[in-house]
């Protein structure tokens, strides 16, 4: 067997308010209600029925993206195939689909007291904790890129973005943060 090659994720420069997250297993899980219920134990966590909400448990999370579409996050190892197998076994013949997108996107965090303000330089959503509480997640637009935005703490957001858009998104947010009054 050939020596496995190292992963080379897109380059990323951290700042005091932004840091990359390590590679992860990512699966899109499409399922009707019955399949969602059957999957609950296998991932293993409940699949939320509430729109735009995420369940998180340690390094695993289940994010509502659409009424039958979920983003499952898990540690990079042992990999998507294992998660996929467990879910397929649990869901059986109930209508569902699983697609491995572990490499399609990358994730980073925006954190600190200016986090929402920085994001609002490019994101048109109301990020006040009253309207976008901890645990809320959604696909949305950051200027000309699409992202999944998930508030994990009051001052911490998890951002998922397609890999080729990540240099644009991080550079744009850096520009926005640099222009904030607090930066001067």
């Amino acid at each position, binding site marked *: 067997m050939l020596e496995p090659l190292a992963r080379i994720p897109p380059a990323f420069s951290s700042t005091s308010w932004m840091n990359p997250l390590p590679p992860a297993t990512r699966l899109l899980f499409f399922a009707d209600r019955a399949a969602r219920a059957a999957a609950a134990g296998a991932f293993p966590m409940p699949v939320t029925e509430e729109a735009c909400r995420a369940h998180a448990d340690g390094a695993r999370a289940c994010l509502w993206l659409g009424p039958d579409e979920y983003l499952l996050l898990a540690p990079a190892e042992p990999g998507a195939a294992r998660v996929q197998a467990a879910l397929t076994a649990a869901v059986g013949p109930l209508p569902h689909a699983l697609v491995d997108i572990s490499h399609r996107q990358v994730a980073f965090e925006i954190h600190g007291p200016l986090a929402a303000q920085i994001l609002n330089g490019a994101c048109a959503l109301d990020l006040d904790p009253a309207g976008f509480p901890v645990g809320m997640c959604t696909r949305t637009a950051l200027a000309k890129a699409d992202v999944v935005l998930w508030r994990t703490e009051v001052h911490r957001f998890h951002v998922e973005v397609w890999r080729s858009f990540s240099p644009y998104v991080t550079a744009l947010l850096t520009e*926005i943060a640099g222009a904030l009054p607090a930066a001067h």
Partner: protein
Amino acid sequence: MSVWRTPGGGRIDRTQRRKFRFDGRDYQGVAGDTLASALLANGVHLVGRSFKYHRPRGLLSAGAEEPNGLVTVRRDAARVTPNLRATQVELYEGLDALSQNRWPSLQFDVGRINDWLSPLFPAGFYYKTFMWPKGAWKSLYEPVIRRAAGLGVAPTEPDPDRYAQCYAHCDVLVAGGGAAGLAAALAAADEGARVILCDEQNEFGGALLSDPQATINGAGGQAWVDQALAELSANPRVTLLARTTAFGYFPHNLLGLNERLTDHLSAPPAGRARERLWQVRARSVVLATGAIERPVVFPGNDRPGILLAGAARTFLNRYGVRVGTRAVLVTAGDDAYQAALDLHAAGVSIAAVADLRPQAEGALPTAARRAGIEVLTSATVLGTLGGLRVNEIVLGELDGTGGVRRKRTVRCDAVLMSGGYTPSVHLFSQSRGKLAWNEPLQAFLPDRSAERERSVGACRGIYDLAGVIDDGFAAGAEAASGRSGRRRSVSAHSAGGDGSAFLGAVPLAGASSDKSFVDWQHDVTVKDLLLATREGFRSIEHVKRFTTTGMATDQGKTSNLNALSIVAGALEVPIPQVGLTSFRMPYTPTTFGSFAGASRGDLFDPVRKTPMHDWAATEGAVFEDVGLWKRARYFPRGGEGMHEAVARECLAVRSACGIFDASTLGKIEVVGADAAEFLNRLYVNNWSNLAVGRCRYGILCREDGFVYDDGVVARLAPDRFHVTTTTGGAARVLAMMEDYRQTEWPELAVWLASTTEQWAVIAVQGPKSRDLLQGLVEDIDIGAAALPHMSVAHGRICGVPGMVMRVSFSGELGFEVNVPADYGLGVWRAIHARGEKDITPYGTETMHVLRAEKGYIIVGQDTDGTVTPDDAGLAWAIGKSKADFVGKRSLQRASMHAPMRKQLVGLKSRDGRTILEEGAQVAEIPGQKPPMRLIGHVSSSYYSACLAHPIALALVAGGRARMGTTLYVPMPGGDIEVEVVPPVFYDPSGARIHA
């Protein structure tokens, strides 16, 4: 201090001197000045030349409505901002401003000749004159007019400043921070609302900033403002934005605010954003935009020194500047008397008050008389005199029978005028709110709101201070809570508030030979408007376009109502019947930079790069843009140009092996028990009989039967398909699929996911490709029998789990190695290293040539939205047994099979060397002169290095029946003879691909 500057009072700091420059001359002002007040403090009234007649002009106002005092402010060669209103430019140390619209100088302007020639330049002049001769328009008239027209000069260098943007949300947005706006913000904040309060000026307070007579709760107005601001700024749910113009009101309570962050600073900190564009979505909006004083229309009303009474009062009380030594007030209401009284108290002699009304017995006129000021009633203005500054005004007393009883010339160096107020309904009107005419106030007022919005204070015709503040409190509370709770109240008093008004031209204005201006910025006079009505224009929208009244950068803030009244008078109809022109954003001119924000340079658009991009860059690849992607176009070696490099790359692929980054190819995973059925309904092909592990070339049509996209589809499992699309089509194909899945066939158990970026795709193409990949793949038999052309297998490649598709877009034996994106670069390097001398990286240009040699189409290049599968020679792909698929019914129409439809063919230049131009037309008959009869066009054209002659693909009417015939490609140098040939130039039997 100059004689014009008062010894004390106002919002300026006399101890802090500010040097500045205007038209190259040095002056001095003080902190708190605007450029306008600083110029007046230096006795400078002449600030510009008028647009059409180049008449000398002075400041008309003290605010955003200023039509005359337009200046260019320059910091350096690149930081040049034209068309700023001097009344809004805050003075800073070293400010360098230039007047506009004059040549060679303000004092002596050659264009002034237009004024003497003005009988030649009536309204509509341009429309009527430059009609003949036809050719002269382009060569003569237009260049001359263009040079003469326009205000200011745009900077020629790129804007070096930084512009920020942000989105914000609030419960209540208050636009305007005068008494009404402050009150509304206080009341809304009382309700716990998230509040944003913005004001275009450097400080909040509005009219209270220049109203020393105002008292609120027994103290001065300014004390109340200070208290309100202290309260608001202590509230974390309130955002105060000074120097911030609410310039646009967009649907569903989205407002655009332009915040100016550094324009008032002498030395803006490096890197600090110059402006910030706010896009605020507000649950409720309170408009507290105030009112603008109306000028009086009389002959010669545009001489420098003639200005609005309220402006004179603002210059005096807020900026400590006297606008003259001897002033005449022309008014039609009581309010303006306060200006005369204030100036009188400051030592300016008031030569007379010309009151247009028959009587003036209110408190203020009485006070004026008591102060010894002469008040003339039933007065009119017959003219003014003066070169670069007014020095005399000719007054008359109306005799009641249409004549003038006494005519008097009064010496003066300033004329204050007031025709009442025009409520600023710009934002309300932008929000699509309906206005209603208010006869007593002679103004349009907000009537029916279109949005969750309220107008308060002067912008809805409430002028007395107590009423204004009460209105603000009530509206602020209601906007925040939906209830009309009232927790606050004040007792307040100020001088103004009688609301009397005068519209249109003064009596006998027409008798003067001098012009009576209505629109200062566009030089529109009473005569122009009357001419328009004589020419038959009835609607104000048409009059506006004919005369250009209200169409300047000030959008007619000071002129619209006077124009309307004059037109209504001429037509003898009530004002509302003439109509009102639309207000458009922006309220005041806004920089392009603020709209662009960060979207410039590297951040203009996302730049998408594949996992192998950096390798290609290191190898010296030349990239091309394909949508947002950067794709390696070719890899020049030594001093190669594109043609040499592409020829070498093509030959390498055909003779040995090439490696190509195909990662940008769109990929969609179609998964679910009904996946095959779903694709059957969408694509023209039959998918039911595609075995697992096999691939098929798929064509997707629109419902109208024309080719929309194409790509290879691999069946990975009974319920899982890997669909590839064109690079540019990935997003729209997925959107189309989702549309059908969700809205037409929701009963199908199928789901879609974009996997474009999940996979790095490495195309290894050429006769040596199999040998090269052997040994790099595990658990995959890539032998000819196990992995025939158009098949797919999973396994490990260079130790990485992935899949190998045996597909070819080159016409050679070929593979596309798919590995998870993070491994793409590593696997690419490993394959490239293994290939040593036998492997050649190639780019999109070579890929294009290779596919064209095989007659493979590129959707969007060889098709154009009117090409059916059959037109493209792809009818074989259609699943004939299928009852239906998207586009099938359209393809059944007789015209879709007409023999003379344009069909894809190959073209070979008869001379064996001329490369046709892509897009060139094809003719059947040689030697035609335009208009020619043309039967098609060239869609792809290259030089084929391995065939050693040029090749081209073309869409030609009835093309397949023309094989072997000669057609002609007309070019400027003459016809190029071409032979019609089959579109497959290379290896027509396909032996190489199946090797």
